[in-house]
């Protein structure tokens, strides 16, 4: 495989070791070009103009929707709604199913959720008097499936679960969870923010009703995301963002809404973001997910092995780990670790990783996290290793 780093201009403009893809990924030139070309060559109002630029913009927008739909294998089962990102998509569903939630019913999430898949459910549960149930983890850091079986029952309305934990890197057995949900006629949502850039995501295989992800973690632009909605769920989902573009007819006495994805896309759409996202998808498809996943797995394992060899504590030991590894260097605060690494132009994340309920459960205030992208190589892990020696020296 040719050197992928060369596709990402930021590495030549600012040489550095980037191990923070779980927070946000760098952008290949093809994505930057797609965004730039949209604004400089094909920009226009989507679905709102009769002039040629608008028609071309609208065509590009809908082609991108097809591209996303192919990407997650959604053509036969549901629709792609463009959102602002994963957080936006999950909020859309949490608000959209609110009418299903009543006192006596429950909704189920897990202990390892990012705040984006925790707080919206906590809020909507409080507003509706619904019980919020949280699936525990095993001591290794996997979902406790026996606990899941206890929590998901005939009063469960929706189950929302991360495909991959942003803190532990644990790859969850999502299919078992969605099967459980379906058994009790509950809906299911998969937060694919951390998996979408590392593995082939197939909504048919996952068996979910909703799936949310962001463009920026899969080498696309910020401010664009995707919510997959299974066809049968489109009608029951209440609109979330009211305004222009999502309405059928507006009268003084009331408004009717468009059916399909358009009913959830109020406001002027993010055309450049959508075009950049489609370019990112084509880029990943050219590399192929067989290669991408194998690469991510190999480097994730290398990271874990390196930490273990150097007696750096790795947080969790899940059966399958992809992309992210959280670690603790002796008793040195993660911010101090991240700061000294930053001095060597190594980018990692230090802090709570928007996963406070998980850290509280683990009785750890914060961790440092290294995460892998397609541009990383073993040399990046070696650079990290060298710099961690320095961290220990400063705090010895």
């Amino acid at each position, binding site marked *: 495989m040719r050197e992928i780093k060369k596709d990402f201009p930021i590495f030549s403009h600012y040489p550095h070791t980037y191990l923070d893809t779980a927070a946000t990924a760098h952008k290949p030139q093809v994505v930057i070009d797609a965004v730039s070309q949209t604004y400089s060559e094909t920009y226009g109002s989507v679905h709102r103009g009769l002039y040629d630029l608008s028609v071309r913009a609208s065509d590009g927008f809908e082609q991108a929707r097809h591209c996303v739909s192919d990407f997650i294998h959604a053509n036969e089962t549901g629709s792609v709604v463009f959102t602002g990102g994963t957080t936006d998509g999950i909020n859309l569903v949490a608000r959209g199913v609110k009418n299903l939630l009543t006192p006596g019913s429950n909704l189920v999430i897990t202990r390892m959720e990012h705040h984006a898949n925790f707080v919206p459910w906590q809020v909507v549960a409080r507003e509706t008097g619904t019980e919020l149930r949280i699936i525990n983890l095993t001591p290794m850091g996997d979902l406790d499936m026996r606990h899941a079986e206890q929590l998901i029952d005939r009063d469960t309305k929706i189950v929302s679960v991360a495909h991959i934990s942003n803190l532990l890197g644990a790859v969850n057995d999502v299919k078992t969870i969605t099967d459980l949900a379906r058994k009790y006629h509950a809906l299911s949502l998969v937060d694919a923010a951390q998996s979408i850039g590392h593995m082939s995501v197939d909504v048919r295989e996952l068996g979910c009703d909703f799936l949310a992800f962001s463009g920026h973690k899969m080498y696309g632009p910020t401010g664009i995301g995707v919510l997959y909605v299974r066809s049968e769920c489109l009608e029951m989902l209440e609109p979330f963002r009211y305004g222009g573009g999502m309405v059928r007819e507006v009268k003084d006495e009331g408004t009717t809404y468009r059916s399909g994805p358009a009913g959830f896309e109020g406001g002027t759409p993010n055309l450049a973001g959508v075009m950049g996202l489609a370019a990112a998808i084509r880029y990943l498809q050219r590399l192929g997910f067989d290669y991408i996943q194998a690469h991510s797995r190999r480097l994730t394992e290398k990271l874990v092995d390196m930490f273990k060899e150097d007696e750096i504590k790795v947080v969790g030991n899940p059966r399958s780990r992809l992309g992210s590894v959280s670690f603790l260097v002796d008793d*040195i*605060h*993660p*911010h*101090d670790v991240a*700061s*000294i690494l*930053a*001095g*060597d132009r190594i980018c990692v994340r*230090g*802090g*709570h990783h928007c996963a*406070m309920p998980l*850290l509280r459960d683990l009785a750890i*205030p*914060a961790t440092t996290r290294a995460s892998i992208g397609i541009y990383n190589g073993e040399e990046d892990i070696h650079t990290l290793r060298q710099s961690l020696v320095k961290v220990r020296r*400063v*705090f010895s």
Partner: protein
Amino acid sequence: MNNTHKLYHPLILEHGKRPRCFYPMDGAARIVEAYNPICGDQFQIFFKEPELQSVSEVSFQGYGCAVSIAASSMILERIQGLSVADAQRVIGSFLQLLDKDEDISIDDEPLSVFCAVRENPGRRDCAILSARAILTYLENLKE
């Protein structure tokens, strides 16, 4: 030496490892919380007798990085026994020192080691965490 390594001045490392005034105070009259929701650093700052005109005894405990612990330790050590007005002045000039837009130095030798924070803006919130909480508390005493 790059900016990050300048940040870890021996005095900061020393206070980070062995903070002064670092104990929970029995019978504290007031407990002020200093919390940074972005990184999770969290201290409780104990005041023995807040109603008086001076900071007679002050201590802290909690969780933080070397920079936030060292800054808390050195600030608390510095204001111990000062009048409320003097404590405010010390903390005020410390906060000014860390302001990237303020080109000043302070003659407070120990606290001036935090100058390097200006070159590491990502760590400014660590250094000012306790100072800001204490200053807010002292200012509210007047009302």
